């Protein structure tokens, strides 16, 4: 940061440079003000209003009543519960991802092709693969029940039509969709661990498990932490796959998430004030996770130095 003295004595050339620089960053900055800063302030104000977009925003102020209503709405808590249940997929994906990455880090043939195969679902359109999996999960003709019937001779479960099964189905889907990303991050992490560490451990007579426990796992902790935080933040925003596979939120609203609830309130029912309050709650949750990210990093993450 420039001190006051420097500011006053800034050369004409430096001043010119500064003006140009401000001009160069003007577009993203204006975009930030218009499409991020302003909407956030607006959402805060709207969250205190019983606003529908048609009636007056300022004339229908209800204070914190929207929040009180949300926090006593069973549907909201059900959606929140489902959102958190879906997060069971996060540790599953992380463990699988780490194991696959450790395998790919060995001297095996076809590494490139295998990595590509794991990564294909990540780059595929979320809508298209959600449509595909709705078909795979189809009760009467889907792939899964086809396999189930071929193996057991009995009709398989109603994947998307049962309150418990629908959650399992969506967890399977989410693990499948995101696994490749986790694999690539862990693989990069593994490749950053110096080999001498393992060799030193081998000389000390450490077995594979000990090597994994005291070298691999701690040195992968930055990746683990990154994957965990981004998955948690992403986990609170799950929407598209739920809306495509179960457009009405599943049997008895059992597959709906917080964002699904938000979308329904705001855009199906037109309760824009109420929806804004849900958005603010969502923002607070994500802010807390991000804060934990910054504070916890030093505590849990071990680096090579």
């Amino acid at each position, binding site marked *: 940061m*420039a001190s006051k003295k420097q*500011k006053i004595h800034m050369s004409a050339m430096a001043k010119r*440079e*500064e003006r*140009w*620089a401000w001009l*160069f*960053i003007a*577009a*993203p*900055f204006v*975009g*930030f003000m*218009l499409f*991020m800063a302003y*909407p*956030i302030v607006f*959402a805060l104000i*709207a969250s205190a209003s019983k606003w529908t977009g048609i009636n007056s925003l300022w004339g229908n102020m209800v204070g914190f009543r929207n929040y009180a209503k949300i926090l006593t709405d069973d549907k909201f808590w059900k959606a929140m519960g489902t959102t958190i249940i879906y997060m069971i997929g996060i540790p599953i994906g992380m463990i699988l991802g780490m194991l696959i990455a450790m*395998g790919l880090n*060995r*001297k095996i043939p076809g590494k490139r092709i*295998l*990595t*590509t*195969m794991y*990564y*294909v*679902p990540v780059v*595929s*359109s979320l*809508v*298209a693969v959600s*449509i*595909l999996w*709705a*078909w*795979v999960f189809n009760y*009467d*003709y889907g*792939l899964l029940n*086809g396999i189930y019937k*071929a193996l057991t001779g009995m009709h398989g479960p109603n994947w998307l039509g049962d309150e418990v099964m629908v959650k399992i189905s969506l967890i399977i889907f989410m693990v499948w969709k995101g*696994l*490749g*990303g986790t694999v*690539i991050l862990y693989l990069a992490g593994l*490749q*950053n661990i110096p*080999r001498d560490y393992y060799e030193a451990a081998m000389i000390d007579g450490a077995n594979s498990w000990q090597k994994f426990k005291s070298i691999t796992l701690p040195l992968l902790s930055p*990746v683990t932490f990154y994957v965990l935080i981004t998955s948690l*933040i992403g986990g609170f925003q799950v929407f598209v796959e739920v809306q495509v596979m179960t457009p009405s939120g599943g049997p008895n609203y059992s597959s709906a998430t917080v*964002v699904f609830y*938000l979308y329904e309130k705001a855009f199906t029912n037109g309760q*824009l004030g109420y929806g804004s309050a849900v*958005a*603010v709650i969502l*923002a607070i949750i*994500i*802010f807390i996770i991000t804060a934990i990210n910054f504070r916890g990093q030093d505590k849990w993450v071990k680096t090579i130095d």
Partner: protein
Amino acid sequence: MELALKRSSAKDYQSDRVTTSKEKVVNIIVFVVLFLFAITMVFPLIYMVATSFMTKNQILSGSLTILPNPILIGKYSQVLSKGQFISGIINTICVEIPVLLIGGFTSSLAAFAFAKMEFRGKNILFLALLATIMIPFAVVMIPQYVLFTKLGWTNSLAPLIIPGCFGNVGMIFFLRQNLYSIPSDLMDAAKIDGCNYFRIYYKIFLPLMKGALGTQLMLWFMGIWNDYLAPTIFLRSEKNWTLQVVIRSFNSYYAIQSDYALIMAASVIAMLPTLVLFFLFQRVIIESIAISGIK
């Protein structure tokens, strides 16, 4: 860049080592397990393509069949002859081109300023921009929707095009990192020569960040191509629907008629461009994803 260096040195090391026969056996087992699991991962996608070639009878026979018999390609021509599908593709391209051109320009220009120029408030402004990455779309979508409605944009593609033209923060961040690895001597020399700053950006640094810019534009292209939530909220009239919104509506419409072959054919076509891009440029794409986790 650092990553690539480390990787190559690790590889050299690896090849120096002698692989024991026990390790070889383990490697074979690991390979088989990884291969079978990888097949399981892509199997739904194979099934998707297979279904798109099947007859309705075969699909609804209720028994497990993977290979289409007979092979029908009619569903693809049926999908491609649907006006709505074609207009979905055209609309998506109409969003892609201006956003990537203008947004790529504004982003790279800002990245240049943040990496190579001195100005007051640089750090704080950069942090403010970076913070927007943390803000979920779901939080700002209602106010944005209201804003775009008030501006009268929701009857056009403007809500998808205009915000993108102001730049992409993720891209600014990556290009800034990339520019840090280019020595600033070039900048100083150009300044002494009296080049104006835009010329320095355009003539010197833009060509130097071509590679990174290309990768980022590709990722952005995929992001726009696959975007669904913003188009569903902001596009009021059907004629403006982008491809993802169109295939979503196909799904709800044709599922009732059990025309799964058509739905799958439409989804395959919708996935194709991003998959082709990924196969062509997988090395750079994977590398840039990996770097994001290590940083």
